[in-house]
């Protein structure tokens, strides 16, 4: 889990501060440290340059997640930019499919948050479809507040937990 958190911190930086920095798509932009998401992405990413067509590159360099405001499922400008890059990657790598996970923070009841997570995942999925990704390559799942990545009970953690995460998978989607 420690490695995961290090990897996550890098993603947050990429997501918040470096969204308009084209340099981050260059070789090695993923930076040091990596880890598995724990929800299906392959782990054990080595330091240094990543294969740009690998799910690890998607996770580290493209940015696999977008964040939402409290109770919202509308996409911020930053979220749209990240999703546009996700769509571009998916277009370049047609052999991959993706499951988009919707998550909520712990404020709110379990069952409402399941519905809210479904809304967030669909919001990200709809954007990818509008960018030309075939809906047959995408599936959504909600985890509500069941799978936080940050465990503190303050807004600094909640803001990371209100997210939609695009998890890349090889091959077809099954139910």
């Amino acid at each position: 889990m420690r490695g995961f958190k290090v990897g996550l911190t890098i993603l947050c930086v990429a997501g918040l501060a470096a969204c308009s920095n084209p340099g981050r798509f260059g070789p090695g932009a993923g930076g040091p440290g990596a880890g598995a998401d724990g929800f299906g992405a392959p782990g054990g990413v080595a330091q240094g340059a990543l294969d740009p067509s690998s799910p690890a590159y998607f996770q580290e360099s493209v940015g696999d997640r977008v964040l939402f405001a409290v109770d919202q499922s509308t996409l911020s400008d930053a979220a749209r930019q990240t999703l546009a890059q996700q769509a571009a990657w998916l277009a370049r790598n047609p052999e991959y499919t993706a499951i988009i996970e919707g998550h909520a923070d712990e404020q709110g009841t379990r069952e409402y948050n399941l519905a809210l997570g479904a809304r967030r995942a669909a919001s990200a999925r709809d954007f990818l479809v509008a960018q030309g990704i075939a809906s047959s390559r995408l599936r959504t799942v909600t985890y509500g507040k069941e799978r936080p990545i940050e465990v503190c009970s303050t807004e600094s953690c909640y803001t990371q937990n209100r997210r939609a995460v695009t998890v890349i998978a090889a091959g077809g989607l099954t139910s």
Partner: protein
Amino acid sequence: MIRTIALAALAALAILAGPAAAQDGPLRIEITEGVVEPVPIAIPTFVAEDGGAADLARQITEVIARDLTGTGLFRRIPEEAFVAQVTEFTPTVSYANWKAVNAQALVTGAVSTSGDGVTVKFRLFDVFSEAPLGEGLQLRGSADSWRRLAHKVADAVYSRITGESGYFDSRVVFVSEQGPKDQRQKRLAVMDYDGANVQYLTDGSSLVLAPRFSPSGDRVLYTSYESGFPQIYQMDVGSVSPQRLPVPAESMTFSPRYAPDGQTIVFSAATGGNTDIYRLRPGATQPEKLTDAPSIETAPSYSPDGNRIVFESDRSGTPQLYVMPANGGEAQRISFGQGRYGTPVWSPRGDLIAFTKQNQGRFHIGVMRTDGSEERLLTASFLDEGPTWAPNGRVLMFTRESAGAGGSSSLYSVDVSGRNLSLVDTPGAASDPAWSPLLP
């Protein structure tokens, strides 16, 4: 799993209707008034009628006493204070001995064993009125059902004194939790209402959420991520065999609840990001849609007569409570207070709706009348949610989660007046309780 218990009234017990003494009329606790001063009750250890019954008699007496004092309505008088010991189970008692220790009620009993069977007899006396309260009762069961026999005695005592049906001989299905917040393992489990006899129904390999008991107590509905996606399942508690329900595999389904008929099921399904409430009737091959709005509709709960459904929706912009006819159609908003309302649950008595409320960074369990009036908040904490009613509609159990990285969940109960908040004894962390009906 559930054994039949032979219940038989002891025939022709002498009833000595003495004149009422100190207390005004017969002993009676009115629960609705909110009892501040618990009634002192004497429960001398039940008489063991054979050598093998001594341990059991002690254990049964303890369970009865814990049931009764656990309600907050009774205070047990310690046996050391007694001026006389009960060594024989007799139809009459010396009321003076019990007045001397200020007992208002007295429960006497006896336990005997034969082969695999246990027999428990008891009598209840109103000490101040110097009269038995009801007839003596005898209950018989197998040796391993002794706790149920004790709960049944406590239910009878509670019922005779309060005029309400009891709730001690009941079970609770819940989610047993293990591990830190970001790697939590959840298993479906069932236990007696007091935390005894825990049995696990799933192995923890898939996330499970929010179970509900069927009105007959033999099955549970729940949500599982077994397929990788949230889907509703039904499980027979006796055979522990899960069964998938005929809902489309491509939609995510959750929040399943039984109708009072025990066959019809309502639940939420998220399709294309929109969550609505659906109904699955017995024998149907596919569900029917009961709500049709772009907002979130979830957490349905039937009125006990089956005519209406209360649910949660954010159609107004924030989650609020609505009531609609059981066949769908126009819904009336019933929650108008400050904050966000969720997980409404209709009382088995039909008079109240319990809910979770979130306001100014705190969570509450509350109750309101079915038209939304007379809202009362019973609890407050960092995170209280998911109330479930005791079978008699007088007590609620719910999940309380503590804050922060080390936060964990526990079950609590509170009575409908807001008194007697108590931690429920579970093995480890627990959430999402759902109470069974009173067992037969």
